[in-house]
């Protein structure tokens, strides 16, 4: 067994070196397609987190007109708290709104200076028991005296999700195409390797080597190419995380776009598995035609 293992590894490395250029081409397409797949996965993870954090925050903001009377304000507050869909409600006065605004942008003094404390409207902040009732509640509140506008994050989240899903589908289609290309490229490198060794293969068959014995080095070759591709893809994703994402996080701390190392590890394992499948598939594609006795 030790001899066989040594034999297989030796044959595989020879094959990989013999067509270096083609090997590199196969590895790069594998890396590219797997990286896109990884991007989709990481993107999905980020999105899940982001949506999760937003969903908890689906809030109705009932902005009040400046000319609203204290009685109207009270009356509105009572009406809101009596609604069955409402979980909590609190009143944010103009000054509180300004304080909140100052806190949010404390690192951008320019933004604070440009806003007059009086410019921000007072509002009722409503937390709902179920985010899905936001639309119904908002229509009921919209016509009431003193109400200027009712806003809720749900619509924006929904639109964003639709967009994200579209993006995801598009990237998945590109990924699928690239994966098919990868498979064919790997098949092609294997075919060339087989061609280069046709004499050896002929002799192997003649002296009674089993088909599997003949196939294994070629299958390993395809798998090795795809596995290296998966490693390169993960490397690029990791680089992107540290160089781009982490810096972006520093610049825009309110964006919920953290990706942990655990996610990257998960992605790597999936890419490796997909890579192995692609590599095996490509090899079999190349070996199918010949190598029946």
């Amino acid at each position, binding site marked *: 067994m*030790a*001899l*066989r293992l040594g*034999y297989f590894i030796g044959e595989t490395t020879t094959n990989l070196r013999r067509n270096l250029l083609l090997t590199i081409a196969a590895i790069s397409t594998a890396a590219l397609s797997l990286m896109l797949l990884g991007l989709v996965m990481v993107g999905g993870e980020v999105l899940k987190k982001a949506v999760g954090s937003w969903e908890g925050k689906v809030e109705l903001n009932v902005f009040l007109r400046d000319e609203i009377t204290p009685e109207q304000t009270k009356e509105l507050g009572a009406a809101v708290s009596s609604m069955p869909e409402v979980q909590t409600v609190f009143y944010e006065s103009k000054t509180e709104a300004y304080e909140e605004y100052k806190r949010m942008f404390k690192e951008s003094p320019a933004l604070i200076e440009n806003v007059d404390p009086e410019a921000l409207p007072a509002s009722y902040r409503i937390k709902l028991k179920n985010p899905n009732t936001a639309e119904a509640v908002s229509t009921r509140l919209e016509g009431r005296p003193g109400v200027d506008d009712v806003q809720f994050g749900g619509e924006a989240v929904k639109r964003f999700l639709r967009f994200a899903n579209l993006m995801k589908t598009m990237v998945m289609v590109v990924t699928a195409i690239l994966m098919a290309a990868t498979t064919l490229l790997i098949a092609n490198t294997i075919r060339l390797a087989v061609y280069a060794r046709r*004499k*050896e293969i*002929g*002799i*192997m*068959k*003649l*002296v*009674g*080597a*089993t*088909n599997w*014995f*003949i196939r294994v080095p070629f299958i390993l070759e395809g798998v090795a190419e795809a596995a290296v591709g998966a490693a390169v893809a993960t490397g690029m994703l990791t680089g992107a995380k540290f160089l781009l994402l982490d810096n972006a996080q520093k610049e825009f701390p309110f964006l919920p776009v953290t990706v942990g190392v655990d996610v990257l590890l998960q992605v790597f394992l999936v890419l490796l598995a997909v890579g192995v499948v692609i590599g095996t598939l490509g090899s079999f594609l190349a070996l199918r035609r010949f190598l*029946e*006795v």
Partner: protein
Amino acid sequence: MIRLENVSKVYKDSVVALRDVSADIQKEEFVFLVGPSGSGKSTFMRLLLKEDEPSEGKIYVAGKDIGQLPNWRVPYLRRNIGCVFQDFKLLTNKTVRENVAFALEVIGRPRHVILERVPEMLDLVGLSHKLESRPDELSGGEQQRVSVARAMVNRPPILLADEPTGNLDPATSAEIMKLLERINESGTTVVMATHDHAIVDQSRKRVIELENGKIVRDQARGVYGMGGS
């Protein structure tokens, strides 16, 4: 050891390669297969190796009907049959020793067996002094000896030789012939397809002559042509 029962082989384009061929080759026999090009000698050999299926008839090798053999068993059939060819079929990027060892490696023989048998076999064919040479550094006769060593290193009970002296001068041919006879004497059944009149006439062994795919002669202690050509 080898039995053909009414074997015919018709290729797709209805070229008939063998017609109703029956032959029985005993264990430890030495048989010449003679006949002009295209008479069916190569098809005969290919069928024994199950590189091709007969259109009709049955072939037995070592008592087994090879028509019943599932594909995955074919490599094991071939381990019982050593093969030598006119063009040697040696790997030019491997040394003599590696070429012979290759035949054992690829059927998964353990290292100690390889280390023991390869020098032994190369000694038998008289090449122990050329272990590290490459095939292109050897004469034709020496290359054919390597290929015989490769065919026999796994000790198969049958040796098929397809025009083994086709590329060699008469003196070298005679040496290869001597080697094959020695292998035969040590108990291996040898089937040798040849065009070489001198060798056949000299050896006086069994001759099966094919013409247009038919056996026209099966003679113990025969010569190449009836007419003495």
